[in-house]
């Protein structure tokens, strides 16, 4: 084995009393794509932040080309040739794509004026090398997440990055976008870059990577060539136990119509969307990212107003754009973006759990600490939320536990209709199975569940019926028996006639 390009040895890192990393090792080689997998809270993000120079390790060494590397800040990491692509890139929205790429090191003309022509030209060259079509002059605002990541990658290449770290880059991408990202990653890898790829999606891990490292509870578990591993084996190492059936949807007989959506339209976003969800039914809403699925759920829930159509719950019409009324009527929405929409990160677990139910928890208009604590404790236990104290900010929890808090806060309202938007995005396998079991249980108890999901296995495993959206319109309504990857993808890409 040649000397690794980048190596971590015996790296440990603690935050207060919590040990995030303990004695971790990792070797990245030039021209190799290396996958890092583990449940949420396994320490992957901390490891990435150490490589990015955000955190300094408490113990252990990082070496580059066999020489010890001291990273005391993100600038050091960049200078050492380490580039990190995050799940949600942070670009300057009002600057052009080219300006974003060359921020802080713009090509200059005389008198230290920025040489825009050269900047544009070099940005165009980078995109040509990546084989993507992006206009260097357009502002970053409005770029899809996939395109934003490509801008970040272009920036990394322009910095001659030798190590490219991708932290769950595909979580918000659709299938086609993932393919394009992988094509870029492969070409970089083949050109001699060491790629570290972090993902919860195993098909992607095996499609891209030659080596797989598994972490659990902040410790290194194993590193093996991808060819010698199976998905089951990786999952077993991640959770340290066997995971039972991943998609345990119980068969239920659908009851009365609970949620009826008729001709729902928001100009320029979605058009004439009509469907019904019955009691005891899980209906999946599939489609590509940007097809308008989340927007439809937001309009049903009243976060956004709709321009035409109506939403009925148990036969009575919900007022347009009134979330509080929707909640009172028995509707709940677990939103797509946990950190921005699902939770108030700075508030405690308790306050978050009780927020939608704060009126119902009050007696004579007043809230009593004991009631609040009891309610939060009950739901935290029911969903097995792992938290230090319920008065700690919810931001101190791992991603999977945060998602459980979001579910807890909505299940506590005893909803008749539950809309879940990407319920398992970015959470670990163990929690994922728990969430699926929970949704299945709710349906069995007579709740109507509408599930927006970009993960086909989840859609096909969980749903009684699959609705597919394409460019703001409903293009298919496929019963479970006839739903397969092909029929859903065809409808999602607009290539199938409405079924």
């Amino acid at each position, binding site marked *: 084995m040649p000397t690794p390009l980048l190596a971590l040895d015996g790296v*440990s890192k*603690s935050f*207060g*009393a919590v*040990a995030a990393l*303990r004695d971790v090792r990792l070797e990245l080689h030039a021209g190799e794509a290396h996958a890092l997998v583990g449940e949420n809270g396994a320490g992957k993000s901390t490891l990435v932040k150490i490589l990015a120079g955000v955190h300094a390790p*408490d*113990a252990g060494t990082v070496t580059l080309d066999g020489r010890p590397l001291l990273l005391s800040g993100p600038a050091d990491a960049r200078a050492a040739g380490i580039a990190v692509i995050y799940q949600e890139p942070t670009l300057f929205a009002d600057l052009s794509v080219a300006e974003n790429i060359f921020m802080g090191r713009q090509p200059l003309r005389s008198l230290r004026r920025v040489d825009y022509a050269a900047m544009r030209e070099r940005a165009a060259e980078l995109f040509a090398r990546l084989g993507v079509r992006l206009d260097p002059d357009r502002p970053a605002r409005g770029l899809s997440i996939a395109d934003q990541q490509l801008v970040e990658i272009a920036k990394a290449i322009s910095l001659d990055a030798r190590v490219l770290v991708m932290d769950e880059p595909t979580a918000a991408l659709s299938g086609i976008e993932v393919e394009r990202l992988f094509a870029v990653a492969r070409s970089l890898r083949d050109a001699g870059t060491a790629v570290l790829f972090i993902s919860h999606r195993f098909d992607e891990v095996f499609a891209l990577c030659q080596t797989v490292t598994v972490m659990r509870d902040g410790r290194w578990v194993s590193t093996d060539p991808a060819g010698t591993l199976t998905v089951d084996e990786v999952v077993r190492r991640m959770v340290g136990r066997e995971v039972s059936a991943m998609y345990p949807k119980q068969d239920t007989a659908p009851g009365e119509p609970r949620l009826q959506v008729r001709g729902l339209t928001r100009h320029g976003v979605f058009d004439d969307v009509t469907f019904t969800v019955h009691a005891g039914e899980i209906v999946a809403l599939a489609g590509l990212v940007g097809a308008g699925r989340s927007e439809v759920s937001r309009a049903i*829930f009243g*976060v956004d107003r709709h321009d035409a159509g109506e939403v009925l719950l148990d036969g009575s019409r919900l007022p347009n754009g009134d*979330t*509080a009324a*929707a*909640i009172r009527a028995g509707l709940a*929405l677990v*939103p797509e973006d946990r950190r*921005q*929409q*699902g*939770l*108030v*990160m*700075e*508030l405690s677990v308790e*306050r978050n759990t*009780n*927020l*939608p139910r*704060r*009126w119902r*928890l*009050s007696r004579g*208009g*007043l*809230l*009593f600490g004991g009631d609040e604590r009891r309610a939060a404790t009950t739901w935290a236990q029911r969903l097995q939320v792992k938290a230090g104290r319920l008065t700690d900010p919810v931001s101190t929890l791992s991603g999977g536990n945060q998602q459980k808090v979001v579910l807890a*806060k909505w299940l506590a309202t005893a909803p008749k209709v539950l809309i879940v938007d990407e319920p398992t995005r970015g959470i670990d396998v163990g929690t994922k199975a728990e969430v699926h079991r929970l949704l299945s249980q709710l349906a069995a108890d007579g709740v109507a569940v509408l599930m927006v999901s970009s993960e086909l296995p989840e859609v096909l495993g969980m749903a009684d019926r699959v609705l597919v959206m394409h460019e703001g319109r409903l293009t298919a309504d496929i019963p479970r028996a006839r739903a397969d990857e092909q029929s859903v993808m065809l409808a999602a890409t607009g290539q199938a006639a409405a079924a």
Partner: protein
Amino acid sequence: MSEPAARIRRALGTWDVVVLLALVAVAVVGALTVDGVASPRFWRFVVLEAIPIALIALPMTLIVITGEIDLSVASVLGLTCSVMGQLWVSGVTSLPLLIALALLLGAVLGAVNGLFVTGFGLPSLAVTIGTLALYRGLAYVVLGDRAVANYPTTWTTTAIQPLPGTTIPWMILVVAALAVVFAVVLHAMPVGRGLYAMGNNAEAARFAGVDVRLTKFWLFVASGAMSALAGVFWTLRFASARADNGSGLELAVVAAVLLGGVSIFGGRGALLGVLAAVALLGVLRNALQLAYVPANTLTVITGSLLIASVVGPNVAGMLRERLRRRRTTTVSPSS
């Protein structure tokens, strides 16, 4: 550490308690070193001066917690004084009617702020800087350079009447009652939970069924009405309605709110700390005046305190984190 002991330690570490302790310290040191601070007359002046600031600081605390600000409060106070004066001159002689009209005017002025902020989605900082100038200008339009000072003496003496057996004005009971109302709304009612939620993350609050815009609108209305109430008190205390009444008072209010531990970014703070800060600033200002400290120095001290209130919690947090790190590394050198 046992749970009650831990709870007491956490409580002692909160900013509200720091401000309260500072208040006690300033009062004790002042009484020992400055002639007159220990006298009942001193406290009467402190309270009289603090009443309008406290009245306006109550709704301001809630507004800043939601992430907004209302800088027009002192101008609402001034315009209320002018209109009240003009009404009195024009023959409205019923005090209850005058007070009712003043409160209504304040509520309307607040509603205008609220409408611009929530209806048109404009930043409250910009809107209320605009109405700060607009309302003050209107106050001059109504009353010009005149002063209306011929209110019946029964009104003006009643306004500053002390509680029986003390020198403390009875109006402090009104302030206390209103403080309880605002504290209950903020800390013990569902509405209050929503205020903290929207101050931290308005989008997540909306997804949890909090009506962010409507709530903020009513807060601005409340702010206008409370400023008007402060204006009524101001008119009667000084027995004088002038267009420049309370000029610059908004800065004293915002200073107290921030010193009281409310985050200017919203989402954090408590009413107790704000009331303690109103008292602290009042005692400090009056004690220093008695000690013949020049006015400019007073301004410098108030400014420094304000900066300390912003920097203080951050430095305290950093120190705590460092201490904890040292403790954990000495307890477990390797694991």
